[in-house]
């Protein structure tokens, strides 16, 4: 092995890489927030069994869950061009991630909701609680505890999958790395540092999620 590592090139570009890491976090957080909002509607539509809407929700969920993320991103970036819609790389990755997150989270929400027995709903009704109170104090808190962990996983997944922005020239962490390595030809060094940065980001997210859950669910099983 006669390869000489040149780390200086990488450390000079560290501010730009961190900027890229910020874009990565940015796009994943946004995709989660929008994904959660849409997922709530999808889950409700699917559970309601009203003909046009439940089929639409099922179609969305199944397409999101059964096709590759890379395909979704290509679809948003190249495919929508056929309809005259030209998205920027950032928007294309965001749209694809929102689409997939919504599909996966809708199933998570549905599972969480159905895991709470009907008996609890009836019991709180017979105690004289209103519909709003039942959901506010009985159903939703329990549901939230059950979907908290899958939601964290989905967030980590979104961070990792935003790295596909490299293929459409987005300026997130991987895309920036790709740009700098093509300028300096220090491919190995740049991608090693990027791998470490991704590891740190995901660990940081998982650790904060664990700390938050400890506080939120204190004293509960």
């Amino acid at each position, binding site marked *: *092995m*006669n*390869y000489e590592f040149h780390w200086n090139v990488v450390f000079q570009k560290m501010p730009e890489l961190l900027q890229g890491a910020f874009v990565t976090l940015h796009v994943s957080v946004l995709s989660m927030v929008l994904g959660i909002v849409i997922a709530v509607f999808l889950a409700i539509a699917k559970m309601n069994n009203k003909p046009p809407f439940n089929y639409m929700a099922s179609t969305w969920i*199944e*397409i999101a*869950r*059964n*096709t*590759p*993320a*890379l*395909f979704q991103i*290509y*679809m948003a970036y*190249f*495919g929508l*061009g*056929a*309809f005259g819609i030209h998205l920027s790389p950032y928007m294309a990755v965001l749209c694809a991630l929102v689409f997939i997150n919504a599909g996966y989270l809708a199933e998570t929400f549905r599972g969480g909701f159905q895991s709470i027995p009907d008996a609890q709903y009836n019991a709180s009704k017979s105690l004289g609680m209103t519909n709003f109170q039942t959901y506010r104090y009985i159903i939703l808190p329990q549901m939230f505890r059950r979907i908290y962990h899958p939601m964290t996983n989905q967030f*980590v997944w979104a961070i*990792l*999958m935003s*790295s*596909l922005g*490299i*293929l459409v020239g987005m300026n997130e962490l*991987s895309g920036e790395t790709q740009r700098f390595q093509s300028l300096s030809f220090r*491919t*190995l060094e740049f*991608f*090693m540092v*990027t*791998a470490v940065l*991704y*590891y740190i980001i*995901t*660990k940081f997210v998982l650790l904060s999620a664990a700390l938050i859950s400890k506080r939120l669910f204190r004293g509960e099983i």
Partner: protein
Amino acid sequence: MGGLFTPLSWNDTGFILTGIMNTILISGVSIFIGTALGVMVGFARAESNKVVNFCLGSVLDVLRSVPLIIQLILFSTFMGVMGSPLPPFVAGTIVLSLYTMAFMGEVFRGGFESVQNSMIVASRSLGMTYWQTIRYVRFPIGLRSVFPAWLGVALSVIKDSALVSVIGFMELLRTSEQLISRTQQPLEILIGVGIFYFLISYPLSLYGRRVERKNAA
């Protein structure tokens, strides 16, 4: 006029079929190797002490917390720099198998840990040796219960195999990408690709859900 861009024709069928075969090949091989390694790793984690577990766990953790696309680029450049560049199929299979192993390991670990200790004690007291216990009790019971989870990971590997295109392996998405740059018909080709993945993934995921329901009942 024989322009630069020519529309999609029947002559492209062979090209697309090659892509499809390559996608099936690399995901099949990676799932097979990844499952075999995953069973070993899962068993090792269920069986060993805290220190070994921690070391093994952190290696798997790295594989799960770095994006697959970065792992692929890193590994193939690394081998190139070391003076022994690997063909895309080999490099892709190695990375995808290890990635699969990292997820399968956790799945199987859960399966092995779900086998009750009393069952192991009972089989040992019936005079079974350590290996017989593994062969006839722990493996069959532990492996059967995780089938739906295994299928879920396998399906995600089929979908993730699309990423191997970045190191130059001619799987389905890369062939379609090349067809798109020639024909300039992105929508038709991409929808075709999407339908292919959907037709593989959807029936299997339905089957997995049915087994899961049956197991729960």
